[in-house]
């Protein structure tokens, strides 16, 4: 398929237009597909389990993915710019530990949270430096940082969870409170997702992220400072981990040094199921969030159906593989 004639052009083009081009806000195939799958799962599960379609279960499911969803957004943007971050789980835990330790040492919890988020941003900048200035690969830099950050968590706490019983109620409110019956966590999540989806689609700043990920050289040849772009997306992802960590701390009322192990896989899987490309240049926030929702609905369903936890991992992995295979197949057909 190296040479594409005119007849080929018109068919691909027709297919593209039918599936929704980038203009006009038409329905995009990936997102539509995910919504359909999620809807089917909902339908099946509401028959299979009387508990599934209850307010409590819905709320529990949403709580499960809301905070992680913030990290998914950071990861998606990083993936679009052509990077990847394996350290998200440890960095999220580190945010909890830093904020928790500072609080236990008498710092105001809000200030402690701010410092923790700043620390995470610094870790992101540290990785960004190694990637853009030293020239190492994201994968290996973030692998190292994943281990280092986890080590710092264990070092700071001696491996034991920090009980933060004295957290003031107004701080715990972000993690545990509700407004009009809707948990604050979910409100934060929804506002954040809508905002970031809009920014990614509409701002010139994030358009440069797409250019950089799509073809870094061509982006540089368009006058875009690609190293700066990659540095910033790397830093942003870690910063968002910091936010997530602080919210988790407010929710649990504790800081757990082992929290978030394996989170990176879940987060990357969600983004990829949502259509983000590991080679950069492609991805949407809506898709990634739908990917997160799908994984969460599957976990919840399996739990309700009394399927062993071990099976859950196997099924999650299979979903990921199916999504990526489908992606590859479609990409190959596009030529």
């Amino acid at each position, binding site marked *: 398929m190296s040479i*594409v004639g005119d007849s080929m052009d018109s068919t691909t083009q027709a297919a*593209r237009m039918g599936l929704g*081009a980038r*203009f006009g806000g038409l329905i995009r195939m990936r997102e539509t597909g995910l919504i359909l799958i999620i809807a089917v799962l909902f339908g099946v599960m509401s028959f299979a389990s009387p508990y599934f379609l209850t307010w409590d279960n819905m709320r529990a499911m949403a709580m499960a993915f809301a905070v992680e969803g913030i990290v998914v957004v950071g990861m998606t943007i990083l993936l679009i710019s052509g990077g990847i971050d394996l350290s998200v789980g440890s960095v999220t835990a580190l945010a909890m530990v830093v904020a928790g330790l500072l609080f236990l040492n008498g710092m105001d919890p809000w200030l402690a949270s701010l410092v923790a988020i700043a620390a995470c941003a610094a870790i992101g900048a540290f990785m960004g430096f190694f990637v853009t200035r030293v020239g190492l690969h994201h994968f290996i830099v973030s692998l190292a940082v994943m281990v280092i950050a986890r080590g710092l968590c264990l070092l700071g706490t001696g491996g034991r969870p920090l009980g933060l019983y004295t957290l003031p109620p107004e701080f715990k409110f972000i993690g545990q409170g509700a407004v009009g019956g809707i948990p604050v966590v979910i409100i934060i999540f929804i506002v954040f997702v809508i905002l970031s989806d809009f920014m990614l689609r509409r701002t*010139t700043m994030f358009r*440069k992220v797409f250019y950089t990920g*799509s073809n870094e050289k*061509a982006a*540089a040849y368009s006058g875009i400072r690609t190293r700066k772009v990659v540095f910033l997306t790397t830093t942003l992802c870690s910063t968002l981990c910091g936010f997530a960590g602080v919210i988790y701390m407010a929710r649990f009322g504790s800081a757990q040094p082992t929290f978030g192990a394996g989170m990176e896989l879940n987060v990357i899987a969600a983004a990829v199921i949502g259509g983000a490309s590991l080679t950069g240049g492609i991805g949407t926030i809506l898709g990634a969030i739908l990917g997160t929702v799908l994984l969460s609905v599957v976990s919840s369903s399996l739990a309700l159906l009394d399927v062993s936890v071990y099976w859950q991992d196997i099924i999650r992995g299979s979903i990921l593989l199916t999504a990526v295979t489908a992606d590859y197949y479609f990409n190959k057909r596009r030529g």
Partner: protein
Amino acid sequence: METPVLLKISGLSKSFGPVRALRDVGFELRAGEIHAIAGENGAGKSTLMKVIDGILAPDSGDIQVDGRSVSIPSPLAAQKLGIGFVHQEIALCPDISVAENIFMSLTNASKALLMNYRDLEKRATAILARLGNIDPAATVRNLSISQQQLVEIAKALTLDCRILIFDEPTAALTEREAQKLFEIIHQLAGEGIGIIYISHRMAEIFDNCDRVTVLRDGRYITTLEIAETTPEQVVASMVGRVIDSLYPEKLRDDERSEDILLEIAGLCEATAFRDISFQLRKGEILGIGGLIGAGRSEIVKGICRLEGEVTGDVILRGKRLSLTHYGDSIAAGIVYLSEDRKGDGLFLDMSIAANISALAVDRIATRSGLINERREKQRAEAIGKQLSLKCGHVGQPVSTLSGGNQQKVAIAKMLSVDPKVIFLDEPTRGVDVGAKAEIHRILRRLARDGVGIVVISSELPELIGICDRVLIVREGRITGEVAGAEMTEENIMVLASLADEGRQRSAA
């Protein structure tokens, strides 16, 4: 007494969809001859070679090897028939030894469990002895480009080949290395191997080949004995019409202006070039000629601050610019069209509109930094129309377009910022003849409208055809300038390769 015919092709046709790449092509290769294939880009040379090498299957036609009709379904089948192909790009594994590279396909086919390195090296030594002094145990990465090319040739020779195809082998070589390569090619021909030699360089063909077959627009035109023809005649049959008509009208004397649009003064770079000074006048198309590797692209990228540690002055309309990054250059109105459209010119999986706005996203955004998709689309459509871009919809990905239309998108990208000067590096590479003429006309129109146009091209006819004046670069310096009647292939070649005697017999 006739020398035996090794390869005979008749009535060969191959289409890609509606594009007819080869139509009823014939070709004949005798043992021991060096047979050049000449033709412009898109003439069908590489398609023909891919058919011979079994990479592409022909739609119809007959291929005979040693007088027997054969079908060549794969490169492996081609190897078994004794056909070797030395590709333009070097495709060796850089981290393993020369011997291992040479015997890669043999190792692949071998049933032995363990590698016998001593035997490999011994056999590699025997083959390399024919080609020159290369250590079979050396790691490929440590070899020079020309040595790597010899390893490629050695690889082809292991397969007992009797037909050897060279696809522009001198593109990456220095003059001296090229000379060495020709000695080896002559030696191989002397052993009775039939050599098919593809090149754009008339001088090379006339110095080294026995016959030349010309293709044009996928058709067989003629086969000529080198001894009985002239470069002019070959070029004329390649182009098929008087060269002047292929290119747009040049600047008339009364249109010439003395206004200097851009002046470059004393531009230097650490290693790539030094002391580059020239002026670009209003309305003219300025060409930059020279051999590949002479530093042409480096100079232009240096001016735009795309690469290199550059010192020197860039003066646009009398104003000295201070540039540190390509972004500054774009803002000042100086843009660069890359020679490698797919590698670093375009975002293939993104839409036409997004590609066109890449150079200055701000122009399609509101003051608060939000992209206005309607404006993006309208701008893309307007510029597309100006260049008569053929596409269904500016929302479709660039990868669905033909080469010529992709190149138009790349040019549209430049035009989106209303540039004052455009540097175009090989603006028609890989573009078919029709789109090529169209791009030339566009460049002329832009120049008339007052945009400064500077063109780098390795195709001398193109350079001569569209430029009003040509600067020649050799080893990172400007070695001459030709204009008007002095603009001939010979003059340019002499200036481009002055230091190397011997190779330019026809030019001298």
